[in-house]
């Protein structure tokens, strides 16, 4: 029984989060007041969407270090366009196109030039984040018009925050895409065994290319949702977000060896990061402990993974 729970990452992570929330509820009840819970969910939106992009790339045995920079670049671009008076639909379209183009660059570098993904996206990371400074000349983007801010604050039926609904839709779409559609199964296939996939007649490189494009698109959406909620953006926005997203993906069960990981696990992983970051505030710990907590959780997640993998291979041998 315990064994099964341990092997099912989503379930064990879910139980762990419940346990944490229970501990918080007992020790610092104010953290779980309704208003604060809504805040927690609000904070999850951006990191969750970024994590979904990171997961899709990781499943296909890649890694994308540039998603934070793409997100940051889109926030600045979108802010500038809104100030210039563009209508909302045009802003969203432009932002998403930017993400897709940046993703195409990553994908082309990885598939056409055979650069290792970590190097290719490390290179584009510095290019995109340099572009952020060039767009704004180091200035903040503030004083946004209401036309953009409405995207961050609108509510469906006057109750459900719109950006959470958007996140839920994207999550649902990713689940359907990855776990039901043929294209999504191709991504898992490439991650599990690229050579066998190629021999099975699937255009492996095209699949890898697509994962980077999707990651670019999702980071652009995350960027649009970020700036429409916070109302400002700086040239350092998103600077370390890719590391957080990859961390959330790994915590959620994605394996950097490829072929494993689910969107729902990504949601749980990012939610775990968010509740830990905000719990520090309630326990009056300095925010700089946040990174240490994140690092420790990544380590725990991957170590548990490797122990389980060892045990299951032992079991297989016995059978």
């Amino acid at each position, binding site marked *: 029984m315990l064994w099964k729970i341990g092997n099912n990452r989503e379930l064990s992570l879910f139980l762990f989060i419940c346990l944490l929330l229970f501990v918080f509820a007992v020790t610092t009840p104010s953290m779980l007041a309704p208003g604060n819970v809504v805040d927690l969910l609000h904070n999850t939106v951006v990191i969750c969407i970024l994590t979904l992009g990171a997961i899709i790339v990781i499943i296909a045995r890649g*890694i994308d270090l540039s998603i934070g920079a793409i997100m940051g670049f889109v926030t600045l671009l979108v802010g500038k366009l809104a100030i210039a008076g563009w209508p909302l639909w045009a802003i969203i379209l432009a932002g998403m196109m930017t993400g897709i183009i940046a993703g195409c660059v990553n994908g082309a*570098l990885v598939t056409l*030039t*055979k*650069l*290792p993904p*970590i*190097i*290719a996206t*490390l*290179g*584009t*990371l*510095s*290019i995109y*984040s*340099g*572009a952020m*400074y*060039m767009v704004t000349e*180091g200035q903040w983007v503030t004083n946004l018009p209401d036309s953009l801010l409405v995207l961050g604050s609108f509510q469906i039926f006057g109750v459900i925050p719109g950006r959470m609904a958007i996140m839920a839709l994207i999550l649902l779409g990713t689940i359907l895409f990855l776990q039901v559609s043929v294209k999504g199964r191709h991504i898992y296939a490439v991650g599990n065994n690229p050579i066998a996939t190629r021999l099975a007649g699937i255009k492996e490189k095209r699949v890898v290319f697509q994962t980077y494009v999707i990651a670019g698109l999702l980071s652009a959406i995350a960027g649009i949702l970020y700036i429409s909620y916070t109302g400002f953006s700086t040239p350092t926005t998103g600077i370390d977000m890719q*590391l957080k997203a*990859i*961390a959330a993906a*790994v915590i959620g069960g994605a394996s*950097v*060896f490829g072929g494993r990981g689910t969107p729902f696990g990504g949601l749980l992983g990012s939610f775990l990061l968010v509740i830990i970051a905000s719990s520090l505030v309630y326990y009056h710990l*300095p925010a*700089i*402990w*946040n*990174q*240490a*907590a*994140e*690092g*420790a959780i*990544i*380590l725990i997640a*991957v*170590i548990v993974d*490797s*122990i389980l*993998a*060892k045990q299951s291979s032992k079991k297989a041998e016995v059978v």
Partner: protein
Amino acid sequence: MVRKWLSNWTLMALSVFLLEMIFFSIFTPHFLSFDNMSTMLTNFLVIGIMAVSMTFVIISGGIDLSVGSIMSLCGVIMGLIWQSGVNIWLAGLLAIAVGGMAGFINGLLIVRTGIQPLIATLATLFIYSSLALVIGGENSISGFPEEFLVLGVGRLFGIIPLQLLIFAAIALFFGFLLQKTVYGRFVTFIGNNEASAFYSGVPVNTIKIWTYICSGLTAGISAVILGSYFASVRGDMGYQYEFLVITACLVGGVNVFGGAGTISGVVIGTFILGMLGQGLNMLNISSVEQKVITGVILLLAVAIQQINVYISRQRRTSPPIGKGVKSKSSAEIDRVTG
């Protein structure tokens, strides 16, 4: 001819370096002046010190993202130990030892649990940098004694920067270790084929752990030198240094998949990057635009490497024997394909 030159990475890096030097000496005044050269050296040699030991990590098939954080941690620890009244040199040595310990933890994690080095050192990157900020606070520690500052800015006979001597000693040591010792050959072996190294009786785990310990030790040394150069240490002094160090390695021709690389290449790679930074500064190009240029150079370097690998594989596998061609002498094949 061109292909031979392209496939010898060190030679090509050297020519890029010379071209760069010519370019900057034409477009900026006094670039080749003695003062400028020696200032330039002291700006980036710490990156080279970490890069030569990172070379071992990458050759053995790993990667160490945590060097920047280890550097911050060591710097802060040196400052705190000194503040508590210990001799500064002893504090520096202790800090270097802490760097070695941090590297040991990295290595142990990777070897014992089988976590991918990328993820393990990403996690320790978070942990070490957070620790550095927690124990160091937000303010910098400064006021080191005069004789300690010599390490960063001093010159032997008033000419040769001490930093350069330290770098040369470390680079020679690691170059010797890589080329002339059993340890170095084993590292290359592991990078080429870990399984066969294991079955040949190579102590794979011990050797891998030692590559990470060396990486941590050099991060500690860099922290001491940088602390002396800036005359202060801070909890974020090593922020994002890991990217520069890895870039220096890759520009220096170390294969990112492991198994190949030379210390001489990495030394030249470091100098290419360092000279680029200084030259662009003198051309009044902002640090942000420099970042973009560094990124492009990184991509170019690795792309050319991959093309080389591709070409050499093509040559090995497919001599053009086919329709209407009965046989060709190897000289002819060479002429056709090369």
